[in-house]
């Protein structure tokens, strides 16, 4: 009720302003910036299949906005307008339309998945509103068919980057010379990671001695693992999802393959530990966006603030990326010195050296962040922070 009244006052003020200025075009960009408030839309999966992603991101954003609004941005406060896209692409399109035309937001954060983000690209592009996905890692979110979606951004690194990080870690930290690559040939994610791993590992002087493949839903990997064992690699890269990886790690250890194994964020699930068993998982590593065990003071401050706000809950990667997304936008608005979406877009694209919880960030020409990744090691079934790798 009160909101309506306020809106009513705005409307009349606006009309009055328009009349006084004698020009009707004043309403295009100024709407997001009324009464010292800049509206930011959040088109997230708050219910449905991947609700936990959307909820976590929202928690992160809310914590960040609380902190940001203590001082404000250019004397204004940021206000979050959440929209639940029900983990559904058509609903995500509706959300983007509503946030842009009805709420007149200056930028949209969301969605959590690459698919629901892609659904909104068309609308964001045609209305010139920046769209920032916290966790959409698919490469074709920002660049489609060789063309950059100039209003689309992301806070997370893209899939192939993790392969690069893993190769770096294997060659420099573990100092391995030979590696085996075992990929899920039914998944683009797995193939993308493997390709970037092989490229950099070769550049670092390593040698990929064998490549084996499996298909999602397979349960027996003994034959391929026996082939791998025959080549005696120092290291095995398995960029798959936890469902198969759990069995691969278990069966590899049963066959006496004791070398370090490594994967990416696809391993990150409690189910992995159940499937593989705690002992088999020792001496395995994953790359991830963030770790709450990182000793960086920036991360520790975030963990402390998050725990204080959300009843001692330890923040996960989604929380951290949501939190960073809000800071990413706030920083751009500050540098743009305006709430004009086009100026925010320009500022976002120029981001360089922004210090976030998930690492120091710089955008490349494809709007993909170049930033650090963390490497976690499994010790007795627990993920422990191993190191942070800068690109």
């Amino acid at each position, binding site marked *: 009720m009160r909101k309506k009244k306020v809106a009513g006052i705005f409307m009349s003020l606006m009309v009055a302003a328009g009349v006084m200025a004698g020009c009707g075009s004043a309403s295009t960009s100024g709407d997001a910036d009324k009464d010292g408030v800049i509206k930011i839309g959040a088109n997230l999966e708050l219910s449905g299949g991947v609700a936990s992603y959307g909820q976590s991101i929202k928690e992160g954003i809310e914590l960040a906005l609380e902190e940001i609004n203590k001082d404000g941005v250019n004397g204004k406060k940021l206000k979050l307008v959440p929209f639940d896209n029900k983990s559904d692409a058509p609903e995500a399109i509706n959300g983007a339309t509503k946030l842009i035309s009805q709420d007149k937001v200056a930028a949209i954060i969301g969605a959590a998945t690459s698919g629901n983000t892609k659904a909104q690209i068309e609308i964001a592009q045609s209305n010139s509103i920046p769209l920032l996905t916290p966790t959409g890692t698919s490469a074709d979110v920002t660049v489609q068919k060789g063309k950059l979606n100039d209003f689309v951004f992301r806070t997370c690194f893209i899939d192939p980057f993790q392969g690069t990080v893993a190769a770096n870690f294997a060659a420099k930290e573990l100092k391995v010379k030979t590696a085996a690559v075992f990929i899920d040939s039914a998944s683009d994610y797995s193939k993308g990671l493997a390709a970037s791993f092989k490229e950099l590992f070769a550049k670092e002087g390593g040698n990929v001695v064998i490549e084996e*493949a499996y298909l999602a839903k397979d349960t027996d990997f003994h034959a391929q693992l026996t082939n791998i064992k025959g080549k005696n690699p120092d290291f095995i890269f398995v960029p798959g999802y936890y*469902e198969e990886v759990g*069995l691969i790690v*278990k069966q590899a250890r049963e066959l006496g393959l004791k070398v370090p194994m490594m994967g990416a964020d696809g391993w990150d699930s409690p189910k992995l530990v159940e*499937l593989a068993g705690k002992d088999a998982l020792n001496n395995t590593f994953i790359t991830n966006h963030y770790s709450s065990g990182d000793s960086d003071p920036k991360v520790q401050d975030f963990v402390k603030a998050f725990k204080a706000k959300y009843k001692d809950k330890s923040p996960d990667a989604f929380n951290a990326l949501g939190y960073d997304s809000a800071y990413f936008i706030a920083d751009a608005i500050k540098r743009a010195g305006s709430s004009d979406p086009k100026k925010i877009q320009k500022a976002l694209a120029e981001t360089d050296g922004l210090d976030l919880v998930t690492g120091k960030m710089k955008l490349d020409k494809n709007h993909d962040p170049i930033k650090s990744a963390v490497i976690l090691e499994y010790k007795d079934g627990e993920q422990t922070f191993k190191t942070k790798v800068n690109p």
Partner: protein
Amino acid sequence: MEQFIQQLVNGISIGSIYALIALGYTMVYGIVKLINFAHGDVFMVGAFIGFYSITIFHFGFFPALLISMAACAVFGVLIERIAYKPLRNATRIAALITAIGVSLFIEYGTIYIRGAQLESYPDNIVPLKNFEIFGVTISGKSILILAVSLFLMMLLQFIVHKTKIGKAMRAVSHDMDAARLMGINVNNTISATFAIGSALAGAAGVIFGMYYTKIEPLMGIIPGLKAFVAAVFGGIGIIPGAMTGGLILGVIEALVSATGGSLWRDAVAFVVLILILIFRPAGLLGKNVREKV
């Protein structure tokens, strides 16, 4: 060489599981001439019953195996009574399509009841060590699988050839109407066949869960199809044929993977099926004799 032997061992382990499922397939086919496509799903149900008896009721491996076999036997009889019995005199294609329907019903019924998420068998149910002989690792579990499969096969042979119910089964398989005229209770005999076949599938489910850890509602599809290939390979309806077919199929798959064709593994299994159907339709051990069980 070591690697070759290791691949043979791998193949025999997976082959024993195919064989165990194929035993149930072949038995039901031998007696009612029905390819029971729901067999792979009974296998899945067996794996879940075993899982819940271990995690919720804290039974050991062997009690869980027996509970799962008993529950699957009842389940198999229910399927037969509800879905197949009314179609006993219908065309074979009608019964076959019903079997596919029952299979989908069990798969998605399970997903409806408990969701599609996977479960993992606890790691420590059978405290078996791995052996290392001349550089070849043989897991204690795969020896257990082979032993259980062989034991169940022999038990099955004994039941079919040495007991009264087995005699009735052979009679029904030979000529259902004549058997009925001779005073054999055909309905009970067929139910017994389904009970035994499904119990074997249940056993295979628990063993699969123990060996591979991961179980989920759609896990029965591929092993079910492979077991079907194994049964046809060995000569469908012939009990030692199912065992041989399963083991050979497992070894073929492992060797295909060994030569670098791991992505062709499933394709090769079905190519084997096609070749067998073309060149030796009665299967490896099949002869053109009428008596099959």
